């Protein structure tokens, strides 16, 4: 790790003025589970590190009746995993959190850090995109709200400017009869990076047997988390049977863009996209049906 100067702001304003001052030469550190590893390997060599973990006002989640859930960027993954309220109202988020890293990592890794690092394998991203979540980005000049679907631009890349901080994630309340499932495919048991990650969110019509809305979001096998819109299209508004699920899964696999890497060949990963998509769709449909 190279030498760097470290700041520990106590307020958002303080953090923002540091970001404005140091811009590209600074890195924000929340839980540090990604950044510290990357600094040790000299993959990033910031001159300044802004540790925001002390800004306690950013560690929260609350429900706003008309706008759904708001999660502060410093909320750690373990909190999401263990919250009875989230389990009750956003079951799919604890279901994602349980598959994230190890308990030790979940205790320090934050939702904001996971999104801002923007690894294609970031576990929180696909389900939040499926839920149409938005990110609140602030700078000294003001704030803007960006749908997470438009937030990621490539591996490690987002629309976040060097002087901006992602402070909050807003998640609309899912419609009734909706269920979501995220599953990652890994090459061994235990703490593992996703080789394939697929989130699906299914909404069932209240009157008939049709699927009124569906989201399929791919992680890892794309440069940035991405909706498999063609696969979604053939399910939306249809009566769902296994044949249709198989077809959608194949289309999602065709939409994915995996690369050959040390973690798996592109062909194998594409095949696993098909299988995981099929499995999460089946589970999501079963859940919505049993809930009705």
């Amino acid at each position, binding site marked *: 790790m190279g030498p760097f100067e470290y700041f520990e702001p106590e307020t958002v304003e303080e953090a923002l003025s540091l970001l404005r001052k140091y811009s590209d030469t600074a890195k924000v550190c929340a839980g540090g589970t990604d950044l510290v590893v990357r600094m040790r390997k000299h993959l990033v060599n910031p001159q300044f590190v802004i540790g925001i973990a002390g800004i306690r006002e950013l560690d929260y989640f609350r429900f706003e009746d008309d706008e759904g859930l708001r999660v502060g960027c410093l909320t750690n993954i373990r909190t999401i995993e263990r919250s009875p309220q989230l389990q009750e109202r956003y079951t799919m988020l604890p279901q994602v959190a349980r598959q994230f890293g190890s308990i030790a990592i979940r205790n320090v890794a934050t939702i904001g850090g996971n999104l801002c690092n923007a690894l294609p394998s970031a576990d929180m991203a696909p389900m939040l995109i499926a839920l149409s979540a938005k990110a609140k980005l602030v700078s000294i000049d003001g704030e803007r709200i960006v749908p997470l679907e438009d937030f990621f631009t490539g591996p490690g890349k987002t629309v976040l400017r060097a002087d901006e901080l992602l402070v909050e994630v807003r998640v609309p309340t899912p419609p009734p009869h909706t269920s979501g499932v995220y599953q990652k495919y890994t090459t061994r*048991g235990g703490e593992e990076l996703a080789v394939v990650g697929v989130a699906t969110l299914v909404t069932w019509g209240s009157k008939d047997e049709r699927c009124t809305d569906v989201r399929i979001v791919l992680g890892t096998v794309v440069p940035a988390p991405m909706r498999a819109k063609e696969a979604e299209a053939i399910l939306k508004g249809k009566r769902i049977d296994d044949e249709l699920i198989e077809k959608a899964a194949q289309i999602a696999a065709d939409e994915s863009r995996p690369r050959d890497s040390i973690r*798996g060949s592109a062909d194998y990963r594409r095949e696993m996209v098909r299988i995981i998509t099929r499995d999460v769709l089946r589970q999501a449909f079963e859940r919505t049906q049993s809930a009705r």
Partner: protein
Amino acid sequence: METQYVGKRVPRVDALDKVTGQAMYSVDVELPGMLYGATLRSPLAHAKIVEIDTSAALTVPGVRAVVTGKEFPFTFGHMIKDQPFLSIHKVRYVGEPVAAVAAETEAAAQEAVEKIRVEYEELPAVFDPRKAALDGAPIIHEDLGKYDHGNVYELVPGTNISTVMKYSRGDVEVGFSEADEVFEDEFYIHPVAHTPMETHAAVVQYTPSGKMLTVWSSADAPCQRAKDLAKVLSLSFNQVRFISTYSGGGFGGKGAIVAEGIGVALAHFTKGRPVKVIYSRQEELTASQVRLEAYLKLKTGVKKDGTLTAREAEIIWDNGAYSSKGPEVARRGTLTIFGPYRTPHLTLLSRLVYTNKQPSGAYRGFGTTQVTWACEAQIDIIAGKLGIDPVEVRLRNFYADGDPYINEQIMHTAGLRETLEKASQEIGWGQKKPKTTGTKVRGKGIATTIKGTNTPTDSYCFIKVNVDGSVTVLTSSVEIGAGQKTVLAQIAADTIGVPLASIHIPNPDTCSTPFDFGVTSSRTTYHMGNAICLAGQKVRRQILETAGEILKTDPERLTLREGEIIDRDAENQMTLKELMAKKYGGKGGAIQGEGYFTPAGSSLIKAKPGIEWMSSIFWMWATHAAEVEVDTETGVVKVLKIAAAHDVGRAINPIGCEQQIEGSVIMGLSNTLFEEFKMEKGRIMNDTLADYKVATTLDLPEIVPIIVESHHSEGPFGAKGVGEPALAPTAPAIANAIYDAVGIRFKSLPITREKVLAAIRNRKP
């Protein structure tokens, strides 16, 4: 003989120290004035060093020494002296140490290393040992012919071939002509990392005034390392002192000079200040040593009834850039390619070949793991083709007591059949398969192994019965993590007749503990156990004689049990503590005895003259039976159960034996299904434990360790060994089970899910 401890489930004597964090490992050694070392490593697989500029490194505050091969132009090598401490003129693998820095802090050392500039002239490199063995391949060691080497290793100067081993018995052509079927198969087994929890580390101090080199490390054979270092540095043996720490896992990986070498080079330039060198996990994975990869061709003739008539084996071993223990793996470790089977005609050609890769060395099994993979997969192929049950084919050819081994040694304590019977019974061999539902298909497989120990090798020990009746056992056997101290203490306690708790076995120190060949070759229980028996009997005799004097009775009437001296008629009795106080309480004193054990001269190892070295004082036998479930949609192989039966002679500590077996099964499963180096131009791309996949607890099957006891006539309390062979049959047992499940024969390791899925897709309908 009735025992208090031997054969009992005794908890580890080192457990409390370890779980409370008090056990000292090599990384824990802290000395006054200690500096920290860091290493600059080659980014190229094969290159000439044109120039090294260390000037910028020397300006970093806190730097005390910067050393290259120019300042410290020495080489080492236990079998072939081919490895520089720091590169001399050229580099031969990515990760080779080129320069080293000693500084006041780790950060300063690291910063300085990054400031060393090296100019290289890249040379063509070769990574496949089959290609490296061909004429015209880039030559990796131009001076091979000039290297000092053990005279049993046949080098081929002017090539990359560092050891050739040929052996024939009978006439294979006759054997093949007698066969009804001849099978020819080629197998591959990949290199894997030892991945000990404790990476390589050492603290080294060189005091120029007294010319004393002291090394703190968890090396598995401190006396061998001291001997090697003394020789290459022109010091006498008593000027090199290895102080052993506890070890966080060896598996063969601690069987060479690794971190010690960097420390030794640096310590010569720090004016007496000690230097600590700790390998990072990345260095451990890329620049320590790995298991030798091997290409194995096996041709086998069989009669219709499954009787083997002849076997012909040709093996190419990958030595990597430097030899470590590769030459002995290619020479002796290679022999069990013929398996635990009587074969009248056989021939073997084994060649060890340099490549531009990380050095290969000892790895649990010492070659047996590699050759068993080929041998046992082919036995299943044979069984399938002949339509004979794989268990039955093995039983028809197994060695039994009295059979001649390949060098005419007469086999003894062959508990092989019993291991096969028990393991196959436990797995439910021959039972009807459950009906397949969905995409998951089950299958069962079996594999056996034979493993010997390097013979003859020597062990010495020294036992002191102290003035208060406590006992100190001095040995150079390292507690590598397998329970050596516990087993040796159990043997000492029962032999002398004292409580286990009264025995202390300090970690070795080559200045004061007597010679031992090393914790290697599954030999410690047998060899050091026997030495302790001999020394223990001596001190026991002296204790009883002294008691006879004091109690004014015939020592023959006395016995010592659990520290109590009792008369045959139970009239007189006293404790050992009382005896020692009475005899030595005033001016002090101790009862002492030494034990020297060597199997040399035992009638058990007699064989054909000239090739007695192929004999083993004990043979270890094992059978693993595996049940797997293959997901035909994903290629995922889930191992459901492994029953592992091992003939250990006698289990001195059944818990320890079970742990060795369980640990081996885990290791075997991990390197069969998960572990694999991904390389690009000689660079290991997966150099972290996130990407070098070692199985986790969630990947493990039910493991049933089964202990078979054949009672060795010359072993301590009948014991043999268990450390190495426990790994060898796991891979072929899993592969044979996969074949049983989906009809696909894997001849190349690892068996990754991608390979399985591809093979299922390509399967003829």
